[in-house]
């Protein structure tokens, strides 16, 4: 326990520099704005803002990205509340009661409870994060190739089985991601694989280029259909951005109840904010004495998913920081950007660079406080961003995406990959093939193959190595368990 507090104090030392606090404010504000824009989620936000982290030291870079992520979580529901258009999938539920509150002339309390619930959910999530990371990271230090392979297998299986959508399509997305990950020189034998004679591919495909393509460029393509969208609302009718005693009485229990649920869902790979928010909403509706008020402006119907969503984003940081495994699209983007800066999140981050690992955790606590300060008094000026027409925002997003691509490797060839990835992402959305499994497989594919091959070297070619190590067995059982669960769920749905 004492070790945790001394580590947190070390983290506070890193986070409390003027530079880092300034970047938390900038990152949080930019994240809030991007999260607010309809259709642009946190993954796109972090992807297009990656270039601003180049030239920073790794701690400041990660702190800035976390602030963008966090800011996007705070901002995501603003558009849901004001114009009934969610900023991203996890803000869909906020439309259910947030927009009816606006229609009743209660936009102020809706914006206030959204920020307060996000703050409370984030703070509760942070408590869990602080106490969980150290034990998990310490345990993960003992992992050999067999344990790592089984863990990665579980992460990949969980991504397709726990997320919503067609299991087989998730599997196909994973296969495509692994295919992309194998392009280039094989690290163990030096053989060039799957480049089809294109020399620029010899070093492999930079997954950040693919990520920018399938998230940012693809988002612009998806919005081409609605380029004339202009959102209007009456600022004067927002009123005071604060809640009444009655609002608080109705909301505090749902916020406290749903924060741990959101955190747990965030820890699991593939289960992002959208599942957390839907689950919390359903739970509150079931527990409520007035379920008929849900969907008509019940404040607890907004408070519960908002708290759950921010706790979920804290949960998603657990596998990223302790195991180096991103559990969501956004954390995948963050992992990619950090690897660019020469930092590999994982258990060794806590032993080799505790100031970075704990600095980030501490900065999230500070960020949470800064974001509530930004989002409560500045709520009305901030929502004015929604008035900027889509036709102005889209070129800016596209421009930032391409400049970001250029900064990754200073390569013209990357422009070809990013543009093609944008089209592939668009086709995937039309075919309803999920993107997160592809992105995760692309990022983890190299380590997945490497650990499999290293295990085989250690065991002299016998697969029994995966069944001899207890931790490996646990992950294999979990992988099989989630697969069986998904198959049963699928059977039930089709029955």
């Amino acid at each position, binding site marked *: 326990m004492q070790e945790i507090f001394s580590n947190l104090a070390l983290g506070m030392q890193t986070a409390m520099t003027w530079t880092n606090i300034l970047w938390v404010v900038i990152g949080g504000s930019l994240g809030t704005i991007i999260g607010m824009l309809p259709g642009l989620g946190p993954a796109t936000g972090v992807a297009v803002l990656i*270039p*601003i982290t*180049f*030239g920073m030291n790794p701690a400041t870079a990660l702190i800035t990205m976390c602030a963008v992520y966090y800011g996007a979580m705070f901002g995501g529901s603003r558009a849901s509340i004001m114009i009934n258009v969610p900023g991203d999938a996890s803000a869909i539920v906020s439309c259910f009661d947030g927009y009816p509150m606006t229609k009743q002339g209660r936009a102020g309390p809706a914006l206030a409870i959204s920020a307060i619930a996000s703050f409370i959910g984030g703070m509760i999530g942070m408590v869990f994060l602080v106490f969980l990371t150290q034990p998990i990271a310490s345990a993960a230090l003992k992992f050999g190739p067999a344990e790592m392979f089984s863990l990665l297998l579980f992460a990949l299986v969980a991504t397709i089985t726990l997320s919503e959508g*067609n299991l*087989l*399509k998730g*599997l*196909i997305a*994973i*296969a*495509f991601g*692994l*295919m992309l990950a*194998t392009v280039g020189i094989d690290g*163990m*034998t030096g*053989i060039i*694989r*799957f480049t089809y004679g294109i020399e620029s591919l010899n070093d492999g495909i930079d997954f950040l280029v693919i990520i920018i393509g399938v998230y940012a*460029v693809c988002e*612009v*393509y998806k919005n*081409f*259909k609605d*380029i004339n969208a202009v959102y209007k609302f009456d600022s004067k009718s927002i009123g005071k951005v604060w809640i009444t005693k009655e609002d608080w009485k109705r909301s505090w229990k749902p916020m406290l109840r749903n924060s741990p649920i959101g955190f747990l869902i965030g820890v699991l790979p593939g289960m992002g904010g959208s599942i957390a928010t839907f689950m919390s909403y359903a739970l509150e509706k079931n527990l409520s004495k007035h379920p008929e008020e849900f969907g008509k402006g019940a404040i607890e119907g907004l408070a519960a998913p908002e708290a759950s969503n921010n706790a979920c984003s804290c949960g998603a940081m657990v596998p990223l920081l302790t195991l180096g495994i991103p559990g969501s699209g956004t954390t995948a983007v963050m992992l990619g950007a950090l690897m660019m800066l020469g930092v590999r999140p994982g258990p060794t981050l806590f032993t080799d660079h505790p100031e970075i690992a704990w600095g980030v955790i501490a900065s999230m606590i500070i960020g949470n406080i800064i974001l509530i300060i930004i989002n409560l008094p500045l709520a009305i000026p901030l929502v004015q961003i929604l008035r900027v*027409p889509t*036709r*102005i925002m*889209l*070129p*800016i997003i*596209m*421009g*930032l995406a*391409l*400049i970001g*691509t*250029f*900064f990754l490797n*200073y390569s*013209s*060839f990357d*422009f*070809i990959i990013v*543009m*093609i990835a*944008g*089209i592939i992402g*668009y086709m995937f959305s*039309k*075919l*309803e*093939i999920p993107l997160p499994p592809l992105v995760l497989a692309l990022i983890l594919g190299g380590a997945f193959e490497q650990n*499999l*091959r290293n295990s*085989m*070297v250690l065991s002299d*070619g016998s697969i029994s190595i995966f069944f001899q190590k207890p931790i490996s067995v646990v992950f294999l059982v979990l992988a099989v368990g989630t697969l069986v669960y998904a198959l049963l769920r699928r059977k039930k749905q*089709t029955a």
Partner: protein
Amino acid sequence: MNLITGIIAIAIGGIYLVTAMLLPEMRMGDKLGPKLFPSIVGILAIVAGTILALEERNPGKRSKKADFGFVKHKEVWIKILLTTAVGIAYGLLMDPLGFLLPTTLFMLFISTLINKGRLVQNLILAIAFSVITYGVFAVALKLSLPRGFIEQLLPF
């Protein structure tokens, strides 16, 4: 929709598997070699694609028709293809022409494509975007950017 997804998975998985099989066998103490893992991935794509495609034969599990909007939203696809082509050209022009000129031209093109008929607004957006990003990245963050004839004239 699932039939098309299945066929794509089988085709890509097939090409990938054949390429994997043609890789040289070179183990050098590595028990699996460079072929086995890709072969498994290729087979995985083919098997998943085949099951998905075969499920379409069952009327109860049939998915909805894929709607790419090639005809209904022809203008969207024209915009996507034009943006793709110009985006690639932007990347190729960056080295010979520097950052500012290609960025302004690209932004002018894309904003004209999206924000039709507002030339002055688009011109302001294009110039402002390239100048601000140059200021942020090259001047404030001191990141290296390609220098063309415009940048050569600048003091920073």
